Structure formats: structure tokens, C-alpha cells
């Protein structure tokens, strides 16, 4: 055990810090769940790719830096410390990218990864359906092969970023006679294709962070099938593992929120009860535990270990922590905690309120925490179904 960064790691940190210092936009971008903000964030993705910072853990040949997970953690720490904008292409970079690198054909990698890295194509996901949420295997949206095309009919929903994105990946029933986990295929499709209609869904805050996607004989070429026909479920589970797992929720994000919460507490101590004081401290400690656990897992993975159902424990931990931190912040803000997200005066409060609303979704998306607890109980603890 040696918990010191190497010289190389230290200098990598300095390099990142330097680049971000001079490249992070001075003005806060608009929300990427608005049309204008989306394009601002696309530009940020382009800027990142100019610095080769979009996906540092990817192989160099695809535009990455071949970084290991420790370097990735260092990168994320600096990314958040620099107050950088959110990642509008996270569906692409953190979910689809690794999936394609693992399961895609060379042609698919060449076609999609550079455009993803450059921010030219922003990705949305298309998993859930109105009657297939927690129970994803109940999905019914069909993609039936006809010659060299898949013909898609049906509906997807809760597709994050789909209101403004360019492409989407999703899971479809390619065998109309199959059910549950069988006969599903993983497809990529452009959101502007003929036969596809996007209906943005307004969220609690009024912004359009997700959308419904309607398919009416939409055609997708067979080249856009990832893996084999019928193997969609296992590929999706791998992708969902990335989502719940290590890379989508880097510790730095929660550590930064925890620090901001401490500062808020110190400024608003008069609004705090004794219990809030202790909870603020506990949040800071939990954010550290999350960081330690991630470094711990990263070291295991670097040396050949595998990530298993820990992804589910991770998801519960960060989503509950995020929720707790934002509830505390709202409490500390008192009256300002009831402002709307368009208030022009209390920008700090508005930031917390946006975060609070978003934190409500944490225990729901990427598999509800109830589902995660089932997984932990059944797969890790071995309890009966």
C-alpha cells in the first residue's frame, strides 16, 4: 500500500490544472437542457477535444490518452476543481464509447468514436419504454430486420438529452416472438431519421432533459447493430454497469458539492440547527469515503480485478449522499431555497435548487435504488429471489 501520487501523476495533475485554468469558460454556461445551452456545451466538448481531454481513458487511436483509472480520477478532481461545465455528451463518452470499444466492429469505432470525441455528435440513450422502466426486459419496441435494414416501430421514453441530441443508442426487440431478455438487439440511430419523432418531456424545473422517441417504420442500416442480433441484453447490462459503476459519477463531483455545502453552512450557520451541523460533517466524510472507495476499486481494476455488483452499492451510496447534501443546502438557504431556477439575483441559491431537483432523480434513474437493493441482496448476499 502506497497512497502517494507518483511524480508522473503529480505532473499530469499540473498539466490538467494549467489547461483548465485557461480554457474553462469564464461565464457559466446555460443549462444543457435548453437549446442554447446545449450548443454552448457542445462547444465545450469541442474545446475539450482540442485539448485531448474528452475521454482520457480511451485508447490513443480513438482520441483518448490511454490513461489508467488513477489518472482518470486525478483528471476528474481537476475538472471539478476548475468548475468546468457539465458533460452534455456523457451518454456517448461514458456509456456508448466504452461499449463500442468492447463490442463494436472496427467500422463502427471508426465511424462513431471520432465524432463523439469531437463533440460533433451528441448522444442520447433510448432504453426505457412506457411499460418497461424498472422492468426493462418487458420492452416491446420492435426493430425487425428486413434485408440490410432494421425497421423500428414503437416508442421509447425518458431518453436523456434526446430533446437536442444527434444520435441515440437503444435496445429493441428484434425477434417479435421473443420475450423478456431474449431476442433483443442493441442499435444506433440518428434522431433526425425519417419515421422518428421526438417529443421533449419537460422536467420538474421546466427544462427538457429528456424526451419521448416515437418510431414509425424508421429504418436503420444493419451496420448500426452493435454485437450480434439477439445479444442486446448482455451488451446493455455491460453499458448499464458503466453507468452505475465507476466512471459516470466520479467522486470529485460529490467532494466538490460537499465543500460547497460546508461553505454554505459556514455562511448560513444562523439558519442551521444542531442536527444540520452534524449532518453537514457527515456528508463531507461520506464524500471522502466515496473517493476512497473509488480509488480502492480503481487500484483493484488496474491490477486485473473485476468490477461486479459493487456498481449497485455505488449507485445507492452516491445517490443518497447527493440527495442528503442538497436537502441540507435547501434547509440552510431557508427562504432562498424556495426560489425558482430563473431567479436572477441569488445565483448561488439557484445552483443549489437546480442541484436539489436533479438529486431527486438520482435514486430513480439508472435503475431505482429499490432495484439496486434487490441486486445487492440477491447477487452479493445470495438471498433467494
Amino acid at each position, binding site marked *: 500500500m502506497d497512497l502517494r501520487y507518483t511524480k508522473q501523476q503529480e505532473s499530469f495533475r499540473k498539466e490538467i490544472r494549467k489547461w483548465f485554468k485557461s480554457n474553462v469558460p469564464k461565464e457559466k454556461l446555460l443549462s444543457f437542457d435548453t437549446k442554447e445551452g446545449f450548443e454552448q456545451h457542445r462547444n465545450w466538448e469541442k474545446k475539450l477535444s482540442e485539448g485531448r481531454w474528452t475521454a482520457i481513458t480511451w485508447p490513443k487511436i480513438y482520441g483518448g490518452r490511454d490513461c489508467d483509472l488513477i489518472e482518470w480520477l486525478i483528471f476528474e478532481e481537476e475538472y471539478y476543481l476548475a468548475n468546468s461545465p457539465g458533460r452534455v455528451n456523457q451518454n456517448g463518452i461514458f456509456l456508448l464509447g466504452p461499449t463500442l470499444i468492447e463490442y463494436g466492429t472496427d467500422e463502427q469505432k471508426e465511424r462513431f468514436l471520432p465524432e463523439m470525441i469531437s463533440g460533433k455528435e451528441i448522444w442520447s440513450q433510448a432504453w426505457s419504454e412506457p411499460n418497461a*422502466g424498472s*422492468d426493462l426486459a418487458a420492452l416491446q419496441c420492435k426493430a425487425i430486420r428486413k434485408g440490410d435494414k432494421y425497421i423500428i416501430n414503437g416508442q421509447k421514453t425518458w431518453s436523456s438529452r434526446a430533446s437536442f441530441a444527434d444520435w441515440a443508442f437503444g435496445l429493441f426487440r428484434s425477434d417479435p416472438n421473443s420475450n423478456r431478455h431474449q431476442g433483443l438487439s442493441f442499435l444506433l440511430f440518428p434522431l433526425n431519421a425519417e419515421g422518428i419523432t421526438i417529443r421533449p*418531456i419537460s422536467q420538474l424545473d421546466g427544462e427538457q432533459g429528456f424526451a419521448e422517441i416515437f418510431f414509425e417504420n424508421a429504418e436503420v442500416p444493419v451496420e448500426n447493430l452493435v454485437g450480434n442480433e439477439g445479444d442486446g441484453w448482455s451488451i446493455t447490462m455491460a453499458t448499464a454497469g458503466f453507468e452505475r459503476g465507476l466512471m459516470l459519477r466520479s467522486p470529485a463531483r460529490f467532494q466538490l458539492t460537499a465543500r460547497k455545502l460546508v461553505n454554505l453552512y459556514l455562511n448560513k450557520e444562523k439558519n442551521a440547527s444542531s442536527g444540520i451541523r452534524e449532518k453537514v460533517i457527515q456528508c463531507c466524510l461520506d464524500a471522502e469515503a466515496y473517493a476512497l472507495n473509488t480509488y480502492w476499486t480503481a487500484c483493484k481494476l488496474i491490477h486485473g480485478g473485476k468490477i461486479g455488483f459493487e456498481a449497485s452499492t455505488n449507485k445507492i451510496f452516491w445517490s443518497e449522499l447527493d440527495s442528503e447534501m442538497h436537502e441540507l443546502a435547501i*434547509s440552510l438557504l431557508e427562504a432562498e431555497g424556495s426560489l425558482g431556477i*430563473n431567479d436572477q439575483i441569488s445565483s448561488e441559491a439557484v445552483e443549489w435548487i437546480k442541484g436539489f431537483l436533479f438529486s431527486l432523480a438520482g435514486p430513480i434513474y439508472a435503475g431505482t435504488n*429499490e432495484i439496486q437493493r434487490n441486486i445487492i441482496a440477491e447477487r452479493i448476499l445470495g438471498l433467494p429471489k
Partner: protein
Amino acid sequence: MDFRFTEEQISFRDSLKKLCEETCKTSSIRSLWNSLERLDQARWSKLIDLGVVGSLIEKDEGGLGLTDIDLVLMAEESGYYALPEPLWEVALSGSILKYIPNNNEENWKARLANGDFFILTCHEINKFTPNADLADAFFLQDGDGLYFATKEEAKIIERDGLDPSQPIFEIKWKPKKSKRLMHRSESVEVWQEILNRGALFTSAQLLGLTQKVLDLSVDYVKSREQFGRAIGSFQAVKHLLANIQVKLEFARPVVYKAAYSLASNSSGRYRDVSYAKIVSSQVSKLASKTAIQSHGAIGYTWESDLQIFMKRIWFLDVMWGSSVWHLKRLEKEILSPSSEIGPGGTFV
């Protein structure tokens, strides 16, 4: 010792319930969001006919001379429907008329009682005054007393509020000696009484809102199916909702008792009102969180009616003293070794 409401009180509540059921559907609430109208005039007239706005004004001042006990169930009911109109805020202003000498020129007292004239109370416990744009006048407190100001004499600045049904405002105003209604020596206690009553009505509304988000969640989980069965048949969902039921059942008598304490001017009213606000804030926030978890993604949308009630909860949570403020107000009493609280002390 009789901890029940009278039949009159219950039927007064039921008449408001009927009115809300008919006129305050969520579609009607939503239509105001996109309308230039700030009030549903038809509904508001009916509410005025019901007498609530003048309910706390003494009979000889033209009001109904009711008490907090008569109103607490109605406030609860109005919460259940997320009634957007500032019914309780206006009624509240009426409750202090009896302290105000009859020497002001505008003759607004009678007009207040019959609903012709809106006065809102800008209490410093509330950073923002909701619905201030609807007011004809304000009660305000300055270092040396309680003041009256017409809407022309006050500057109201709109802020963006989380609850689309409750536009919020900051009030800027310069006290005019001629408009002072009470000297500080008299007004301090009146001002405290307003705070207590504001907190009580807020607590009661929070109870109703909690019941509503619980009912919406129960309905949703009964109908939503996953894995081939209603998600409400899963123990994890059941137990989340059962916990809200437990907390809500234990919150109600606390709020009702606070109404009694206020109406009877009990020495424990500060403590009782604070407890009512704490317990109703706690249960309503937990219920919001549980409701959104039970609804899944649908509860996170603008389309879902759940937002109407959750946002009202989050808004009322900070009105008339947050639960933290109230906790601090009562903690000294609770932690005093000579506190009356304990066996046999519940009603003294």
C-alpha cells in the same frame, strides 16, 4: 377534555372541500400558470362567500368571529387541493383588526371583512411575500411599530419562485409616521401572534398536502405495473408509503392541538405552534421524497400533477419560520430541567 371537532367545524370544512373539488382541479391550477389572470375570479368569489377571509375578524367588526380551531381543518383541506389563492394570508390580516384603533381614514376595515380589500401581512420572518401583487395594502413592521401601507406606497419586486402558483415578491417601503397603526410596545405581541397564526395555517396546509401526495402515490402504485404486477404490491414500495401514513397520523393531533392553544391563548402556544410547524414540515418533505420515488420518472415531469403539490410543500416549508427556526424557538423550553413537558404535562 374533548379532543374532537364540532359538527359545525366539520361541515364548514366539508363545504370548502366541495368548493375545491368542483373549482380547484389541477387543470384549473395549471391554467392560471399560463394566464394573465392572477386569480380564478369565480373561485375566489365563492371562497369569499364562504366567509373565510373575514372569519377571524370579530363580529362587531363585520367578521365571523371564528377561531383557529374553526379554521384549521379548512386550512388542511385547502392544502389538499393546493388552493392557489391567498386565502389564509388574507384571513390572517383580518385577525389583528381588533387590535387596530378605529382612526384610519380609508375605512378599509369593513372592506377587508367582506373581501373587497386585500391586506397582506409582510412579516420579517418571511423574506418573500407571496401574491403581493394581488394586495391592495400591507401590514408592515418597523422598529417603532406596526404600519399600514397601500400598494402605491410600497414597491413590490417580483422574484422567480419554485411554485408556479405562488409568485413571490420582495417589498420595499418607507415607513410613514402617519400610517403607524400601533406603537412598538403594543405591536410586538400582535406581530408574534401573526407569526404563530401564519405558522399554524401553514402547518395545516402541509398536512393536507401530505395526504394528497400520499394519495397520489397510492393511486399510482396501484395502477403502475412492472414485472407483471402492480408496483404497490412490492414490499419496498408498501413500506415507504406505510411510513408516511404513520408519520401523518401522528402529526395531525399535534397541529390540531396548536390550533386549540392559539385559540385559547394558552401559555404553551409558542411551543405548540412551533412543534406543529416542525412536524408538518418534516412529514411533508419526507412524503414528497417518497412520492417521487414511488412515481419514478413520471413524478419528475412537468406533466405530472405531483409537482403541483410537492412544490407547494417546498414553498410552505420555509414560510412563517422554517422547521429549523421553530426548533430553535422551542429547544430551550424542551431542554429545561423544569419543563412541564412529560407525563401529565401534555395539556398544561
